[in-house]
């Protein structure tokens, strides 16, 4: 049933519909509304046989999930940004031990400077942790992906991270259809662990592995992710059959068939991109978009198939790999090896800077006209950057750029009033 509701509330309901047995989280913006929502539902008795554990850190949150999942319980947590980094060690461990934990990541920037707003620095920083990473374009998809995530995770014995843009989605009130509990029960079978800590069948989990077998173990983790390239679309198809709407999968093209220019992106920004593309199409520009739904595993074949007809590819991403540039772009290039087409990377929306339609239109026009630098920064205030660089060159104070720029802003503001 469609309802006008907050994304976080909807995700909370969807997670509860999946009947997790252990939920455990540590609060961090913008994830809080989700876990508060689950807490309310559990306390209200909406979910019998569920333990909601309030822990002292994200590291503990993931660790509790590891214990619970290893003991054969369906486990869930949610975090964002610094929280994800604080979990990092346990994150790798959960994947390495093959524990099908599901986690919501309310994407948020990573400091310093401390910043609570949205971008993809957090999830991108953990792209090699062994977790499956799915990205939601809309709150409806965020909801649907959680239902799929448990199925994918448990089918593969791999943890799944459902990434949704912090605030942009988590705090947005929209019309959402949250799957009914019964329908989810029919779609998602009870968790049957591949291995569990059980006195009736004791085993040792988490052995120390030396050079003689380590590489093989790592390759097997890779093979599992390759296997996920089949499982993810499978489950998406099962979901569509069960709930009557498409969502998830590996990637989705938008007006891409005859497109000479294709914009590749992930997450909620695709809405604005599509609006912009429609406008340009009306002006006769052959442009389209490719929405990446799964970043890990990375669907090399699908991406290649979708892009090989295009003349140019613009990867728009909300994270910056300092020292090189695009992260998604690098992966896309891998998919395109051997193909000769113009490739552009645009870093946009860092730390919550709005990605507006007009800005995108300008960016795309430049791309179509091949006026873009290989690496562009959308809506960058070059004046300030130049000023800071000049100061540094002049042997001015080095150190935290943030402070210096803020001081600069202050001065500017002061003058203007």
């Amino acid at each position: 049933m469609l309802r006008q509701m907050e994304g976080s509330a909807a995700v909370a309901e969807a997670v509860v519909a999946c009947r997790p047995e252990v939920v455990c989280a540590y609060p961090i913006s913008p994830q809080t509304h989700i876990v508060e929502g689950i807490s309310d539902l559990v306390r209200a008795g909406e979910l019998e046989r569920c333990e909601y554990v309030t822990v002292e850190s994200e590291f503990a949150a993931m660790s509790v999930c590891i214990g619970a999942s290893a003991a054969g319980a369906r486990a869930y947590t949610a975090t964002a940004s610094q929280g994800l980094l604080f979990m990092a060690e346990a994150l790798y461990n959960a994947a390495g031990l093959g524990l099908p934990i599901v986690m919501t990541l309310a994407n948020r920037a990573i400091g310093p400077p401390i910043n609570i707003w949205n971008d993809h620095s957090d999830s991108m920083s953990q792209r090699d942790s062994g977790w499956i990473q799915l990205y939601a374009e809309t709150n409806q998809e965020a909801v649907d992906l959680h239902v799929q995530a448990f199925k994918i995770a448990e089918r593969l014995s791999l943890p799944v991270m459902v990434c949704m843009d912090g605030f942009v989605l988590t705090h947005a009130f929209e019309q959402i259809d949250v799957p009914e509990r019964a329908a989810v029960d029919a779609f998602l079978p009870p968790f049957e662990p591949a291995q569990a800590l059980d006195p009736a069948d004791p085993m040792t989990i988490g052995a120390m592995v030396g050079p003689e077998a380590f590489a093989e173990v790592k390759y097997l983790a890779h093979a599992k992710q390759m296997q996920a390239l089949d499982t993810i679309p499978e489950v998406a198809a099962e979901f569509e059959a069960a709930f009557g709407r498409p969502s998830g999968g590996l990637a989705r093209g938008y007006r891409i068939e005859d497109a000479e220019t294709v914009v590749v992106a992930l997450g909620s920004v695709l809405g604005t991109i599509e609006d912009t593309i429609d406008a340009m199409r009306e002006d006769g520009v052959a442009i389209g978009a490719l929405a990446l739904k799964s970043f890990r595993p990375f669907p090399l074949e699908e991406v290649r198939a979708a892009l090989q007809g295009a003349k140019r590819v613009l990867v728009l991403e909300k994270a910056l790999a300092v020292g090189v540039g695009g992260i998604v772009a690098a992966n896309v290039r891998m998919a395109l090896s051997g193909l000769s087409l113009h490739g552009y990377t645009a870093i946009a929306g860092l730390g919550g800077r709005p990605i507006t339609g007009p800005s995108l239109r300008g960016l795309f026009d430049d791309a179509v006209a091949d006026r873009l630098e290989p690496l562009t920064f959308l809506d960058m205030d070059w004046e300030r950057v130049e000023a800071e660089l000049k100061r540094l060159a002049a042997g001015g104070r080095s150190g935290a750029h943030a402070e210096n720029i803020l001081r600069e802003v202050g001065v500017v503001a002061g003058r203007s009033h």
Partner: protein
Amino acid sequence: MSDRFEIRIHGRGGQGVVTAAELLSVAAFGEGRHAQAFPSFGSERTGAPVVSFCRIDSVPIRTHEPVATPDALIVQDPTLLHQVDLFAGFAADGYLLLNSGRDLGQLGLEDLCERHRPERLLAVPAGEIARRRLGKPLPNAALLGGFAALTGRLRLDSVQEAIHERFPGRAGEGNAAAAADCFELVAKRVGEGANA
């Protein structure tokens, strides 16, 4: 066919700025339309200037960017006038509903009236109305009722339904009543303006 209408709400932390936008979206949803509400995602604390947004359309809304060129402005707190750039991107034919017992002239907004369609710019004592109905000067609900009357984009009953849904019981009734009072007041003023 898109008939998108975008609202920006200004107020202070704690005055229910975000709630206001959400209620508008719920009311619109209740009328079978697509709507989207979201705050100017920040960590502002009580008293700090806060902004929220609402989009209403007859087709699905894909974008999630902030509202840059609002078709309507709701200002919960007139003291913001001299602190924030309330009218940034304000459409020439846009609507303004401002919570104040004084009129726009007294508030020094004559020039605004010149640049825009004056019959769409209105100051109402929403706080006073609320005080009568709730005992507290919480202008939120009243302003929403006023908004319905001023723009004709929503029906009063769907606004009231949204209010009841969010605030069950007496609080809901008080707010719904305040919304109705303000709706009437604004409808009356608009009528006068039309006659004038």
